[in-house]
């Protein structure tokens, strides 16, 4: 549990996510090419199964590690006695807010092993980004998020994300904007509480 500078990315984890399977696949291909040129089970394992496992790792591992991180975060917040009824699970991070104690709990997709608890008073500002773009009938958005700054570090939490552009009055977009506005209000409230404490 950390309370110092917010760390959004654990570079050791990010690099090991990319490089370890890459190295394992390269090594197994090398072993397969060197020792199992004639084919057989060893060749199948080295030339196909291990590289295939590396691809599976790249596709599924971060999501599952993040999912386990969310569960661990909930447990850790409970152990610390932090009220986690206000919690938002986004694709890139989880934000939990204890308004009464003025504490923010954070866990990031690329730093899933660390739950960071920060005093809300350290939030310098919070705002909504509706991602609106385009003109006329093309006006729309593919991402709505709320953002806040802690010690100058900007944290973006998506409330709506899509690979298409949606109209600004679409139900999904409106819900995303509403969630973002709600969280900005909650952050401001907690910040006030934290400053008062």
């Amino acid at each position: 549990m950390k309370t110092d500078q917010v760390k959004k990315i654990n570079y050791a984890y990010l690099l090991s996510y990319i490089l370890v399977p890459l190295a394992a696949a390269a090594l197994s291909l090398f072993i397969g090419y060197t020792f199992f040129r004639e084919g057989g089970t060893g060749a199948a394992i080295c030339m196909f199964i291990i590289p295939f496992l590396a691809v599976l790792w790249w596709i599924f591992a971060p999501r599952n590690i993040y999912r386990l991180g969310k569960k661990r975060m909930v447990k850790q917040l409970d152990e610390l006695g932090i009220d986690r009824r206000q919690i938002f699970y986004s694709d890139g991070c989880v934000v939990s807010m204890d308004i009464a104690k003025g504490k923010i709990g954070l866990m990031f997709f690329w730093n899933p092993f660390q739950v960071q608890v920060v005093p809300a008073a350290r939030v310098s500002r919070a705002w909504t980004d509706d991602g609106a773009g385009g003109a006329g009938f093309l006006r729309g958005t593919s991402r709505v998020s709320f953002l806040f700054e802690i010690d100058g570090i900007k944290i973006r939490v998506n409330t709506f994300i899509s690979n298409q552009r949606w109209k600004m009055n679409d139900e999904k977009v409106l819900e995303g904007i509403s969630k973002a506005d709600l969280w900005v209000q909650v952050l401001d409230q907690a910040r006030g509480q934290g400053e008062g404490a």
Partner: protein
Amino acid sequence: MGLIDKLLRKYQNDWCRECNCAMEKARKQLFALPGVSVGHYTEHKDPAFYRKSLRIVDKKADIPPGMYACGAIQYRCPECARRVTVLDPFLPVRDEEKHEAGVVFSGGELDDFLWR
């Protein structure tokens, strides 16, 4: 009245199906639903839920962000005096509104509620 009109009227809340006439708006009120926030809306058919949860507000601006509101209109038939209360839960989002399915009480369940 043509057949198509009759069919369409059948599905309109401000139409008395007994007397086959338009009902008049007897009361209109905006409420907040403080216990229901964005992403947590579920449809309720129980009038007791609305009696317990609805809080009168004057204008949409009084509803905090991310909280649901509910418009209520009570219609009264000028001929048979039958009353119908139509609730329209919605999420106010800046200048827009995200409407949920409306709830109609035509058995007098909320008749007195709007007149408190």
